[in-house]
């Protein structure tokens, strides 16, 4: 008499019931804020559900805290980007009025790009951003950074391939 196999989603549900309040407590300690902790805990379970991966049931709390940690990193990333974007806005010679909606969309785009760039070396990253975001030609980039056009192209191919691989989902 073996119990019926629990589907992975079923497992997620059990996970929720058994560990939700523990996760809230864990996040509260990390963040020092009840409201953020509750939001992050909820988003952690949403992430677990949408990933459709069998949770590591032997260590459910380690699994949940790994997911929560990556969401916390996203939160730090978003705040850092928003701050940096506002600073870039303020550094413009002319004041620019950006609506909150537009700003949220821009931050989302920057989040996506920033995540794609994770793991790229500093030089590759800079060459790539000069080409893709500032629209400089490879010749101009080579002149500016004092390297050959071929070198610039090599870095660009490497960065693009890196992003294409990361774009999988």
């Amino acid at each position, binding site marked *: *008499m073996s119990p*019926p*196999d629990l*589907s992975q*989603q*079923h497992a*997620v*549900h059990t996970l*929720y019931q058994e560990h939700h309040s523990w996760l809230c407590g864990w996040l509260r300690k990390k*963040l020092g*804020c*009840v*409201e*953020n902790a509750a*939001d992050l805990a*909820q*988003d952690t379970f*949403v992430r677990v*559900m949408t990933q459709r991966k069998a949770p590591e049931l032997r260590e459910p709390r380690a699994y949940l805290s790994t997911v929560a940690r990556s969401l916390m990193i996203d939160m730090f*990333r*978003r*705040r*850092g*980007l928003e*701050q*940096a*974007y506002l*600073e*870039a806005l303020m*550094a*413009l010679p002319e004041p620019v009025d950006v609506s909150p909606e537009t700003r*949220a*969309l*821009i*931050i989302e*785009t*920057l989040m*996506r*790009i*920033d995540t*794609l*760039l994770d793991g790229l070396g500093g030089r590759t990253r*800079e060459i790539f*951003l*000069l080409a893709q*975001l*500032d*629209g400089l*030609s*490879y010749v101009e980039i080579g002149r500016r950074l004092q390297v050959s056009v071929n070198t610039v*192209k090599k870095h660009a*191919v*490497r960065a*693009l*391939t890196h992003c*294409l*691989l990361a*774009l*999988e*989902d």
Partner: protein
Amino acid sequence: MAQPQALDYATLEAAARWYVDLRGEARNEALHEAHRRWLEHDSRNVLAWERMGRLQATFDQAPAGLARPALNGARAKRREVLKLLSLLLASGCVGSLAWRTTPLPTLVADQRTATGERRRVRLDDGSQLQLNTATALNIRYSDSLRELQLLSGELLVETARDALARPFVVHTAQGSVRALGTRFIVRSEAGTSSVSVQQHAVEVRPADLPGAVLRVEAGQQLSFADDRLGTLQPAAPYADAWTRGMLLVSDRSLGEFIAELQRYRPGHLGCDPAVAALRISGAFQLRDLDTVLDNLTTTLPVRISRLSRYWTRVEPA
């Protein structure tokens, strides 16, 4: 849910190289011709090039002149962990607005029934659900979609007309069922899902078969796995009898019948293979399954063996 095609490194790198080579070469006909040949050479090349298009689209959305300083500024900040921490502390709970705008799907509610329990649920848009025994689901309504995630068990859906005209989709581990009408049943079991349509139609999409879709009309049923669509069958009559607390079977094997009863009853309920092929028809009350089992002994050559409250077996008489 369409699965992303797995593209290998070499193909993606080739796409990246084409992108770099073509940049600033709008008038180089020979190069464009060679690129066309590369695309036609292999369908994966086309997929890689499409992915390149999506990457380009992402960068196109970035604000010119601001994106690079913002990204570099954020990166410099990230190196200074302490500074970042102070940023977090300074922003506190109230300043977390940007974080809150995350378009993560919101979990609105969880619904669950115990073994033997049934429940009606009314959703925000007026749609009605009936949950059969041992059923668990999540409800996710967003601005663009009405989504249910059936984790286990069985569900009857009666969709209401939505003011926002949002599609109504039920996801199971094996795929998705999109409502094109008003009344249908979705059931999720180990490894397979099934849908039985009572009014109008639904569209079924297995999770791991990108592009595969099958329309199931009223009076039809369909089983599907994550990588396989079954064939359309006439719907079992009275597939929704459970909503009235009944189980109706017509010429089923005893083994199948007992497996069905097992769903509604806590503990183990087994059937000896020696009698599993016996045929059975009838209407049974789900609320009193022990009586149902006892009555089997008057119509079939079986006896009910009860070792404990949670261990019951149907055996040859």
